[in-house]
């Protein structure tokens, strides 16, 4: 399984990547939407974990770009916002709130990649 973590909080995703690695999930990291697009141009990903609010390309805008590049990619949004409007275009999106629980994240990753195994 190939994962990319995208967040402008470098320490946060670096630490998250280390913790996922200890649990057998290797993840690339990108510190901006632009860097994620660049990496996605060369590497096929099964799943992207995206911060919603980033300088430059926002999480929702990045979702569109990644889906155009890799239509099969699955997405999980991570946000520091308290309330998430899941209406309209975002009703099917998966959101996790910061701070994350690593077990919840891993469970969500597996459920997102393999929804039929729930």
């Amino acid at each position, binding site marked *: 399984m190939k994962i990319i973590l995208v967040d402008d909080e470098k*320490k946060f995703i670096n630490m998250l990547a*280390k*913790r996922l690695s*200890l649990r057998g999930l290797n993840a690339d990291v990108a510190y901006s939407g632009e860097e994620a697009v660049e990496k996605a141009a060369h590497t096929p990903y099964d799943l992207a974990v995206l911060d919603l*609010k980033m300088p*430059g390309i926002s999480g929702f805008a990045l979702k569109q770009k990644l889906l155009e590049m890799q239509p099969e990619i699955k997405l999980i949004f991570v946000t*520091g*916002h*308290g309330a998430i409007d899941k209406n309209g275009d975002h009703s099917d999106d998966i959101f996790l709130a910061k701070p994350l629980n690593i077990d919840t994240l891993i469970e969500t990753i597996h459920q997102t990649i393999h929804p039929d195994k729930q």
Partner: protein
Amino acid sequence: MNQHTIDLVNKQGLQFFGSVNASISHELKNIFAIISETAGFLNDLTQLSKQGKEFELSLLENCSNSIAEEIERGFDTIRQMNQFAHSVDDPIKETSIADTLTLAVKLTGFLSYTKKTQIDASGTDITVLTSPFLLQNLIYRTLCAIYKSADTKDTLKIFFHEKDPDTVSLTFSWGSLSALTDFPDRQTTDVADALKATINFTDKDLEVTMARTNDNLFTALAGR
């Protein structure tokens, strides 16, 4: 003017207060997220150690340093939140332009679209007898509009000086003024009017000029 100004403070001021506090809480959540992940990683290392696995001690040191840095970042954020919260303590008071600019730049620093900003503090500070909260509101709105329009590489430079004994001038200078459209909007114009401030565009800059005293604002906010 009086009722309009009071309405402005009550309605729009509350929106502004909420908006700033939302960005601060977002910043604090990011800080807690880093601390939480780092603490989790320390726990992971503890479990590995119990299983007899070895790891570099520098990992512990890095985690400890990271937590200390984030706690300092959190304290700094809370100091700014506290300073902003106290801007409503006095409806009217002698207000430092340098301090107000510095706080507004720090508060907008929590926004995802913030840009690099320099305040020219080479001159002496200037005070105005005004509403610190409304002044903070006007500067914050101006910064947000510029940041949204400016190129990522642009550095915003802010200068202020006494234009004449009764007027203060704040100049916002950056690379691509032409990109700033629809500014000032209605809400910003309302705030500027209440402060007896005007917003003008020059060739390359945006200039906010403001009266150093404001009798109408006294009457409306302080009942003088």
